[in-house]
């Protein structure tokens, strides 16, 4: 038995153990036991993935009652990379859940679903053939639907969200199933090897590619099939949102990589253009919606759409550049894709766990009612701040390294070999730049409004720091963001191995010798650190002479300190952006002016109401849903309960059958 096989078996055992513990343990110990087992399950996933990345092999076959044969688990280096990501996120989230889960989230159902969800998710990339892949994929979808439903009893919007999620996730399943069926038919087998015999330039391959990309994009939350994402994330418990956002959507990315890099490498350039198009639209739309959102978890959900957009953009760029034999830049773009996957997993897990801690402490998801949490929740504030730095792609975090790599790839792909390259690259740079700018506003808003200034509600004023397991989970996730940002070389080497590229990076740096570009974040840290130390020393010397003094009113102007409600809120912070992008966001505004009785020049009260809706949902899905509903209502008229009418139906049906037979 090889180490990989042992680790795979361990995972299966741990899933079972987790399920048993969730069902059998007494309520007091349930969260602790099931949480520890789920965390171990995640660690086993990380270990399996790491061994698979190192090139170790191992096959585990599980006999099933299916006529299609056993479930085969056979992780490759590419799968291994995604197993590490999924396992690490799962482990951190499970540790967080030990302290966080309460009420319905600590129930038997919820813990069972979490163990199954984590297990299935980290085995999706390990699947060795189509049936195993689809089985794990569906198991992951079902378990996550149960988890989204956790709080259905208390909140009505949870039920709607779960319905949207279930519908979209099954749309994704159907599309993926169709796509693989086409591919399996053309290749003559359901194992990956026979499917990879399909000629990527053939028309069958094109059909399969489009179906599969559509299916995987739905799972990944790409515009316009992202609608489930901003609903499901606020509905699910925070540790579940963290896993879904940081790891589960990445399985969609794994799917596209599986199809375009492993099964059908060397596809035509328009494949890349399709992926770039999806990515560019998602990145800009996602961050635009995130920048004006004031529900913290909804904001993070939209930001996931943005990041998945960037990942797709990187992948599509790689496909285009490879199709045009610009291999050095193409390799860099592919590497950027995987770096973005890992960095997004790290910082989004941190941010969602941080949001969970804030929700736990204040009972608020609405940024407009937070404030001043930096002194009451110091650990959460630190972790969330590091995560926000990562999401805004600032040094020295993982997000910065990933975005730097993407921009290097795009800039060096700029040698005009082809019109498509010459058109795509500038657009890609503009999209990345605009997204980066808006991400900055979004996360300055999220951090600044929630953690700085004065409390805007009683909940925020009486907040308390999270329990030890929650704090530990947040800090671990935040440390990963920093470590991947400071010594990104190891990750870059692992990513290069996952997609079979030569490793060009040392441990402390990401570098591309062919492009003459390198990045050593430690050097950036040293430079900024030297400056900070120098300035801080001067400030300290000055402070010894004239210390800082705290006063009730520093620059009161009007005399009394204005109420905390007079501060800028998240909504007012985003107001300039809402106005600038008015045409793209189309917020619903409603101003009601009540006049005093005698004169219309005297105003008694002004009410202002503004609501930003998801335009895609409003313009694309609503009409479709209305149509379906109307058809349903019309269908009801056929069946009004009258026995005469049913007899008439049977009679006419018989006549039609006889006529058809006679002809």
């Amino acid at each position, binding site marked *: 038995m090889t180490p990989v096989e042992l680790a795979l078996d361990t995972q299966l055992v741990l899933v079972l153990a987790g399920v048993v513990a969730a069902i059998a343990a007494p309520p007091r110990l349930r969260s602790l036991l099931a949480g520890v087992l789920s965390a171990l399950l995640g660690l086993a996933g990380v270990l399996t993935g790491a061994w698979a990345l190192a090139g170790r092999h191992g096959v585990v076959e599980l006999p099933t009652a299916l006529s299609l044969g056993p479930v085969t688990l056979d992780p490759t280096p590419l799968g291994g990379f995604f197993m590490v990501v999924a396992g690490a996120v799962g482990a951190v989230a499970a540790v967080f859940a030990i302290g966080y889960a309460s009420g319905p989230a600590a129930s038997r159902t919820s813990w069972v679903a979490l163990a199954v969800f984590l297990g299935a998710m980290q085995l999706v990339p390990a699947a060795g053939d189509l049936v195993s892949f689809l089985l794990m994929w569906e198991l992951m979808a079902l378990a996550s639907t149960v988890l989204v439903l956790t709080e259905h009893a208390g909140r009505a919007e949870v039920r709607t969200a779960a319905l949207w999620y279930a519908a979209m996730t099954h749309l994704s399943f159907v599309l993926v199933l169709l796509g693989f069926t086409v591919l399996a038919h053309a290749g003559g087998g359901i194992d990956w090897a026979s499917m990879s015999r399909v000629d990527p330039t053939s028309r069958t391959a094109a059909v399969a590619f489009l179906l599969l990309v559509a299916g995987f994009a739905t799972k990944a939350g790409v515009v316009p099939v992202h609608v489930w994402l901003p609903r499901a994330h606020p509905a699910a418990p925070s540790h579940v949102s963290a896993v879904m956002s940081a790891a589960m959507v990445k399985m969609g990315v794994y799917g596209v990589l599986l199809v375009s890099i492993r099964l059908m490498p060397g596809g035509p350039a328009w494949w890349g253009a399709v992926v770039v198009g999806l990515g560019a639209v998602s990145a800009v739309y996602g961050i635009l919606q995130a920048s004006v959102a004031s529900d913290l978890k909804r904001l993070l959900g939209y930001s996931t759409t943005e990041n998945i957009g960037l990942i797709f953009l990187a992948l599509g760029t790689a496909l285009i550049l490879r199709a045009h034999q610009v291999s050095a830049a193409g390799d860099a773009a592919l590497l950027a894709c995987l770096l973005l996957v890992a960095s997004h997993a790290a910082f989004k897990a941190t941010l969602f766990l941080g949001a969970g801690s804030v929700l736990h402490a204040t009972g608020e998801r609405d940024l407009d009612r937070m404030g001043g949490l930096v002194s009451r929740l110091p650990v959460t504030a630190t972790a969330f701040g590091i995560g926000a730095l990562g999401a805004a792609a600032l040094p020295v975090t993982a997000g910065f390294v990933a975005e730097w790599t993407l921009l290097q790839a795009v800039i060096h792909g700029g040698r005009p070999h082809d019109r498509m390259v010459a058109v795509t690259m500038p657009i890609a740079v503009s999209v990345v730049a605009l997204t980066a700018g808006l991400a900055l506003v979004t996360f300055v808003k999220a951090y600044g409004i929630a953690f700085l200034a004065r409390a805007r509600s009683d909940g925020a004023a009486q907040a308390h720091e999270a329990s030890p397991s929650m704090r530990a989970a947040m800090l671990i996730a935040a440390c990963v963001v920093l470590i991947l940002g400071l010594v990104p070389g190891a990750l870059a080497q692992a990513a290069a191995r996952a997609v079979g590229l030569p490793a060009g990076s040392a441990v402390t740096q990401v570098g591309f010798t062919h492009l003459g570009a390198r990045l050593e974040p430690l050097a950036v840290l040293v430079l900024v650190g030297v*400056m900070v130390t120098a300035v801080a020393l001067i400030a300290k010397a000055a402070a010894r002479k*004239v210390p800082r003094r705290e006063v009730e009113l520093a620059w009161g102007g009007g005399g009394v300190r204005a109420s905390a409600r007079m501060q800028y809120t998240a909504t007012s912070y985003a107001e300039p952006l809402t106005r600038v992008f008015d045409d793209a966001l189309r917020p619903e505004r409603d101003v009601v002016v009540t006049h005093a009785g005698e004169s219309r020049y005297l105003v008694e009260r002004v009410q202002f109401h503004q609501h930003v809706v998801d335009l895609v949902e409003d313009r694309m899905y609503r009409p479709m849903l209305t149509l379906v509903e109307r058809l349903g209502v019309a269908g009801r008229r056929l069946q009004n309960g009258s026995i005469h009418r049913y007899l008439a139906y049977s009679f006419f049906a018989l006549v039609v059958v006889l006529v058809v037979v006679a002809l």
Partner: protein
Amino acid sequence: MNGSVGVNVSAATFATSQVLVLVVLSPLLIGLMRTVRARLEGRVGGGVLQPWRDLRKLLLKEPLQAQGRSWWAMAGPVLLVSSSLALCALTPLLGTVTFPSLPDDLFVVVSILLLGSVALALVGLDAGTAFGGMGSSRHMMISALVEPTVLLSVYALSIPVGSSVLSRIVEARLDDPASVLSPVSLLALLALTIAVVAETGRLPVDNPATHLELTMVHEAMVLESSGRDLAWLEVGSWLRLGVLLGLVSTLLVPWGVATDLTAAGMLVAVLALVAKLAVAATALATVEVALAKVRLFRVPELMAGSFVLAFLAVTASYLVVQG
């Protein structure tokens, strides 16, 4: 090995002298701009040295802090100055010799610039007043819209060179002076100038001399800071202006920048930088006299215009290379 030590030593020399020169010059630059403006408006003005005197006064004063402010009120200003100082060390204003482990890559430079913007915006928010939040929100909106222009215009300049390292771009311009006047270069520099004006809060985007809170951007954010906190915020912003003006003028007129470390070369480089900055500051101040601040919601139009210029520059660079 010896060679790499030599490169590091000369890179460190250049970085240190850039920091020193800019720390000395930036307040004088502000003083010069205020004096030029005052003279053109028929006033006497405070003199070129006035910003230095203000700075000394602020550093010696007691900082007051409203109750309920967090440690960020103290840390934010320090971070802003540090990021500006790091920018001074990185950008190739005196010499194009860089640390092998820390090339002045465009994206690194922009990200350090943004780090300063974020520090300033959070200081504004931390004040917990309506004006602080207002300034911060406007400042971040402008930053978000400026970033695409900055990246795209330097991207246009980097395509012919094949590198995103600013020193390589400056060196390429020194080797081939004709490239400075190419359409790509002119379009990109025009776009970059507009972006720099917006990012440093000059007219017509923001009025640095305003006393009307409702129109403030930068001033609204620093309204609640005092003493050395305010001093750091001011120096940080002045340094940013100095570096960015220096970068634009170096890209436009690359002559004088040293490509290796010699005493004579350094002297020429410092004198050239002083001259370039003085000319740029005088020009900027003169133009500002004739300009009025535009409405906040007209600023995006300005930024969209500069973005189009930068995009044209990129497109042109493809055409030129292809042709």
